[in-house]
Every structure is written in structure tokens, then in C-alpha cells.
């Protein structure tokens, strides 16, 4: 069968019930989706299928039909990042980075479907994505600001949650 990954038509040899995560990582060398749990629980393997977030570990490759698969490699490059990617850099929203590809894709889909930039709404929308490092606040702030799009990447955003005493 053939699937479309980040705009490129790719031939797939794996049987149709193979998890899409396995096809992407082990057959097609698309490495940004991470095998965090392979059980649908962490969100690190999230990809977009025609723009909608899916857990690629629970998605049989044979079930996606002609849907376009997007990973963060397809969202932007280091030289030309998407608004959400730039927001994650500017807000220091990644620490170890392992959950970041899934978070960015979920946030991208959330904003594209018109999601609110209220903190509570973003927190609820991303609640299925586990991050053990950040405490989520910088992720939520990044998503809330991402629609503005234009960030100075030579520095990071001042935090409205912080007071510095001498």
C-alpha cells in the first residue's frame, strides 16, 4: 500500500494491522513520533491525519486510507518553523523534548479548529498528553500565544507568572 507522509507518497511493506507508529519509525525512518507507551496513554506518538490528531500507536496503517499523515518534520523545518513550533521555542515549552512533537501537533490541530486561548480550555484540550518535565504552564502559555506567530527567537518570553527579587 501507499501512504502520504508530510506530502510525500511512500510505499509501505508492513501488513495492514501494523501500528502506524511502527511503520513511520521502523519502516519509513520518520522519527519524531515517539514510542512513549505504545498504548495510547501518553500522546508522544501523536500525528495528524488530514489535520486531526491521532495516536499513531493505536492506528493500524491499513485503516488510514488516503488520509495525509503529518508529523512535526512536515510542520516546519529548523529554518522555517510553524507558528506553534516557534512559540514552543520562544516560550521554552520543551525541556527533555520527548513529548514535544506530540504536544505541538495536538496544539496545532486545536488552534486550527478554532480552540479558545483561555488557559483552562488549552489545559483541558492537552490533558491527554503527558509531560513530566515542564509542569505544563509554559506549554499552555506557548499555545495561547501561538496565533500571534511572530516571535523573536534570539530570546524567550518574559513570564507573567514570575517575580524576581534581588
Amino acid at each position, binding site marked *: 500500500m501507499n501512504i502520504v507522509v508530510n506530502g510525500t507518497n511512500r510505499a509501505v511493506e508492513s501488513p495492514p494491522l501494523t501500528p502506524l507508529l511502527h511503520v513511520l519509525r521502523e519502516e519509513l525512518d520518520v522519527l519524531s513520533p515517539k514510542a512513549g507507551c505504545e498504548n495510547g*496513554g501518553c500522546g508522544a506518538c501523536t500525528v495528524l491525519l488530514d489535520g486531526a490528531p491521532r495516536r499513531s500507536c493505536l492506528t493500524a496503517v491499513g485503516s488510514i486510507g488516503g488520509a495525509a499523515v503529518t508529523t512535526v518534520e512536515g510542520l516546519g523545518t529548523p529554518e522555517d518553523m510553524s507558528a506553534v513550533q516557534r512559540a514552543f521555542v520562544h516560550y521554552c515549552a520543551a525541556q527533555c523534548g520527548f513529548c514535544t512533537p506530540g504536544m505541538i501537533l495536538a496544539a496545532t490541530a486545536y488552534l486550527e479548529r478554532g480552540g479558545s486561548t483561555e488557559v483552562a480550555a488549552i489545559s483541558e484540550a492537552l490533558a491527554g498528553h*503527558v509531560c513530566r*518535565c515542564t509542569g505544563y*504552564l509554559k506549554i499552555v502559555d506557548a499555545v495561547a500565544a501561538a496565533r500571534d506567530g511572530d516571535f523573536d527567537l534570539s530570546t524567550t518570553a518574559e513570564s507573567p507568572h514570575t517575580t524576581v*527579587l534581588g
Partner: protein
Amino acid sequence: MAIHIGRGIASIEYPTGMNQNGDPSQAWIKVKPDGRIDVFSGTSDIGNGAKTIQTQIVADTIGVPYDWVTFDNSNTDSSPVCTGTFASRATFVAGKAVLKAAQRVRERILEVAGLEMEISPEDLEIADGDVLAKGAPTKKLSVGDVAAAATWGHGELITGTGAQLNPYAAISDPTTGEVDGVPHAAISYAACAAEVEVNDETGEVRVTKLTQAYDVGKAINPALVEGQIEGGAIMGLGLGVLEDSYPYYPSAEHRGDDFGSYYNPSSADLPELHNIIIENPSADGPYGAKGIGEMSNNAQPAAIATAVHDAVGVWVTELPITPERVLRALDARAAGSGPRREGKHVIFDEELSINAVGSGKTWTAGP
């Protein structure tokens, strides 16, 4: 049913570096022929930002722009010993090693520049990638030109090594715990105020706000310090009200084996956070920094437990403070339970004590 609001505080301290010290970190730095800097450090970056922090330290210590510095911690063939990224030591101890290596590189750049400029190195300084004559800043030579002169003219590699090791503080008297030296690299301090809502029908505790103050000595990168404070806050929240590897303790059965059955905090648990960063420089840390990574999840559980007491009047001292534990404590209080009072003794939690559960040891206020 009613929602009760409660507040509690906690104040903590935490050592930087391995307990008793004795944990070396080393680094070496070389300069490319155009003045760009390569740092080799053995410090793993586990998300804490060691790559960023150590690069910042090197850039400022030598006097070159941040983006002139590349950082390589990728392997043990090129990088020297680092005891590791734990014990809140990556900024203080390992950072001190790269700082010392950078100081050596800076000295050698000044020596070579001195030869080229025919000015004594003591009369030179480095800023923004240029070597300048002190007091006569028009006399300058770029670090790139100095590195080129070293490479092509003097036949020399400009390089420097650095190592940091606080000597091991042995326990000199095991009966008292006395040590023969200082057993930490520094001590950091923090305090936390928690606000909670407790539902007296379901027993659910919701942490609504954490206000936290940390003395980090010097925030080498405030965004990364915030990352530690915020990440630690949510981990401390998990420890306080959610997480348990053995939910039927002491039984070792029925453990959570995936994200559906182990209760870790999600973004939906995110309370309002207020971070306060205090910079009281340490005597020995790089630019006055102290460690912050680990202590950031230590203050919340007690602040939360105290806030729960403030809200509904019960002390839950087994973590996590689950709905079941809150409801059982409320039931017990309704049945009249409380600490046992005898003379000047006030004895809480007797049922949890080794005196109540074990038969081989007792623990009392007696001598």
C-alpha cells in the same frame, strides 16, 4: 456537600551537589582557527538545560557571543568525567568545571593577543569577541584573529581544561554523624504557599494555587529556572495528592502499569502558579548560582497537607492525600478521634506507628 478552601505553607532547604561531596566534573575547551569555541563536557542534559547553561557560562567567561560556542556532551571519547546529572549539580559543580576551563582559555587568548599586539596581557580584556586594550578600546584584535595567529603563526592550539571537586567529607564519628568537612557544595532555600479546595462529600482535593519562592543564588537562565520551579511544582502536586506506585500499600499487587492506571498529573491539574526568584549569590558557585533542580518538588506536599487541614480540619500524613484518605479522616474526626493527650504529650497518628504495626521495635519519647 461543600467545597472548603484552605491554605498552608512550607519552607525547605536542599543541598547542591552529592551529599558528602567527592563528585568530580571536568571539561575541556578548544578554540577553532576563527575564534569559535568548542566545549566538551560529560554532563547529560536530561531536559534540565545543562547544554544551555554551560554554554552561557563559557560565552561570558571567555568574552565571546553565545552563538560562537558549540557544546558537545555526546560521548566519553571526547568528553571528560562528569559524575552525572543528579544531586542538583549540573549548574553548580559541572558549571564550575566549564567555567574554570573557560578561564584558562581566556588567559591563553590574552597571552597570544599580547604577543600580537605587543601589549602586556594584564592590560588586555575580552568583550563580545574582541581583545581590547584596557583604557584604549580602539586598540583591538578579534578573538578570531588571535586564534588564527595561534594556529598559523605560533603553531599552537588554544585550549583549556577545568575540573571541580569538593573533597569527600567522611563521617568521622558514626555514633553522632559528625563529618570531617563540609558535606555539600551549597545549600538552596525555598518556601511554598498552597491553596486547595476540598470537597467534603467526595474527598477530592484540588490544588488551586502554588506561590513559591526560591533562592537560586543567580538565575543563569531565568526561563530555565522557571522550568524547574514549574515542573517541580506539578511533580510535588502529584506526590501530594495523586501518585502512588503501590495504591494498596503495603500490598505490591495492583500496581499502575500504564498511564491509564497510574495517576500522574496532567495539564488539567495545573493550578495557578506564582514563581518568586531570589538571587542571594553563593560564595563558590558559577556567577553565584546554586542548584535548584531537585528541591523544586519538595515543599508542595507539606504545604498541601497543611492546606487540607486548614480547609477541613484533618491531618492526612500518608501520601498521596487521596479522596479515600480524606473521607476516612473526616469520618474518624466525626467519630471523635484525634491525637492522644497525656501530660505534656500530644501524640498524633498512633495507628501508623511502628509501635502499632511491628513487634520488633518500639519508638517513644523516652531516652
